[in-house]
């Protein structure tokens, strides 16, 4: 396993020097600060005028602060998803592709390292790199949340896990495709497969399951197709957030809106995610093993 460790260590060192990942990270970090700071400034401005709260308004300062926190967390979830995907594409497009295309693989594979150890090392580095970058953004987000009242920390953790898990699948798809083809084409193909095809299949499957589509043939076809594509993991955070928003606006908890939010992923979805990860990791290995350099 020394070979895998060496590949992993130096791939991580390379990733840490990639400007595109640094740019994504800096934009994400600044965006989170701007979002949290901006909403807090909005609160300060609003609360500095006594006429805004109290008798003249049916919203008190604490409720407004809570509303801003929910808004911040809601935007934060979207931002983390977007940046995790960007970073997944950034790592997936380069981690193996550059070695194969530049000719570095000629020198590497002439050493006594197996293609299996090389693949394990690359995958470990790619996953670690993704977790570290998205994790740092999440730590920053958690610190910004101290500006607000708190209480949604566990939602952030759950959402972070789901976002990273989904980004790992995307990254593996890009990695496996970029071993066969040009990395830009691989990214486009992965985007179409994961975001368009999978998205359409999952949505139609959800509608068919919910009884919106009554046709049995369509339901059966999409039942099969659903188990041929990766399932995006969903945390309970989105539902928790919606519930908190309903509470703050004085609605009842069994609000109809909650029914349209996907329920958190269960054991079956997580098992399917594990299977998907193993399949795509296997494809990466197969492609690396077959590759002649």
């Amino acid at each position, binding site marked *: 396993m*020394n*070979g895998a460790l060496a*590949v992993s*260590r*130096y791939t991580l060192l390379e990733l840490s020097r990639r400007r595109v990942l640094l740019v994504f990270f800096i934009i994400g970090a600044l965006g989170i600060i701007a979002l949290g700071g901006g909403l807090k400034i909005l609160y300060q401005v609003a609360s500095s005028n006594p006429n805004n709260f109290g008798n003249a308004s049916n919203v008190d300062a604490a409720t407004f602060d809570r509303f801003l926190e929910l808004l911040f967390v809601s935007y934060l979830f979207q931002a983390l998803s977007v940046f995790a995907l960007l970073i997944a594409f950034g790592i997936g497009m380069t981690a193996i592709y550059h070695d194969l295309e530049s000719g*570095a693989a*000629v020198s590497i594979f002439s*050493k*006594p*390292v197996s293609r299996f150890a090389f693949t394990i090392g690359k995958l470990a580095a790619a996953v670690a790199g993704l977790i570290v970058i998205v994790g740092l953004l999440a730590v920053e987000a958690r610190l910004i949340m101290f500006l607000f009242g708190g209480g949604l920390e566990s939602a952030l953790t759950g959402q972070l896990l789901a976002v990273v898990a989904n980004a790992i699948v995307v990254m593996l798809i890009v990695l496996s495709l970029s071993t066969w083809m040009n990395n830009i084409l691989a990214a486009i193909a992965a985007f179409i497969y994961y975001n368009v095809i999978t998205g359409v299949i999952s949505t139609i499957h959800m509608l068919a399951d919910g009884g919106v589509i009554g046709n049995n043939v369509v339901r059966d076809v999409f039942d099969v197709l659903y188990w041929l594509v990766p399932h995006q993991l969903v945390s309970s955070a989105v539902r928790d957030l919606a519930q908190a928003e309903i509470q703050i606006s004085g609605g009842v908890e069994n609000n109809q809106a909650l029914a349209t939010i996907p329920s958190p992923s269960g054991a079956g979805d997580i098992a399917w995610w594990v299977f998907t990860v193993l399949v795509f990791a296997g494809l990466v290995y197969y492609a690396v093993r077959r590759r002649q350099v």
Partner: protein
Amino acid sequence: MATVVSVQNLRKRYRRRDPWAVDGVTFELEAGQAFGLLGPNGAGKTSVVKMIAGLLRPDSGTISLFGSDPGNPAARAELGLAPEDPDFPKFLRAPEVLDYFASLLGLDDEERKRRIPETLAFAGLESERRQVRQFSKGMKQRLGIAQAILGRPKLLILDEPTADLDPIGRRDVRALIERLKESGVAILLNSHLLSEVERVCDNVAILARGSVLKEGTMSEVVPEGSNLEEVFVQLIEANQPQRDHMPSFISERQ
């Protein structure tokens, strides 16, 4: 002497409709021997080298590298390959590249601390702090040779090792080959610099269109009073269609 590499009736083509890139190549290389693999561009020299290093799979034929299949990582433990047009992970620096490869070779910390600075000094890269992506072709070629000798190989394959080197670099590589030969290392040299090959190689094979046209010891291939370049040119021209060497617009009088 022990056989280091044995290549038997090797054949390779990249696509079904393509002609054979390597067609029935057979030779053996023993410890302490220097073997020159010569041929015009596209003759199949690099394909042979890559198959010996386990980077390409032959379509037929066998290769034995230290008695094993080159696809087996253990067989490559004592192989050093300096590829043609070498490249490396581009965001690493020269010492990091060597440390990376030393790890792949399984060298311990003590050996790494000893060998890496010495190898960098040999390659003239000891004070280089830039990342590989900022290297010139010549610097990459120096690093390519450095990583090939790092593991103290028993077989060193040099694929056009001096193509991008300056005269000093060429002299150093020639001295390296002679020193390694003396210490029993087998050398497989693939070069267009025929005077260099003639000077350092014991055996030579001349390839064209994937096939061996002539093979033997240097004295068998090069008759008395001739030189390798003459033999090479005659042999290649006799085996390929004649072509007009000059474009007509160059030959025309002004």
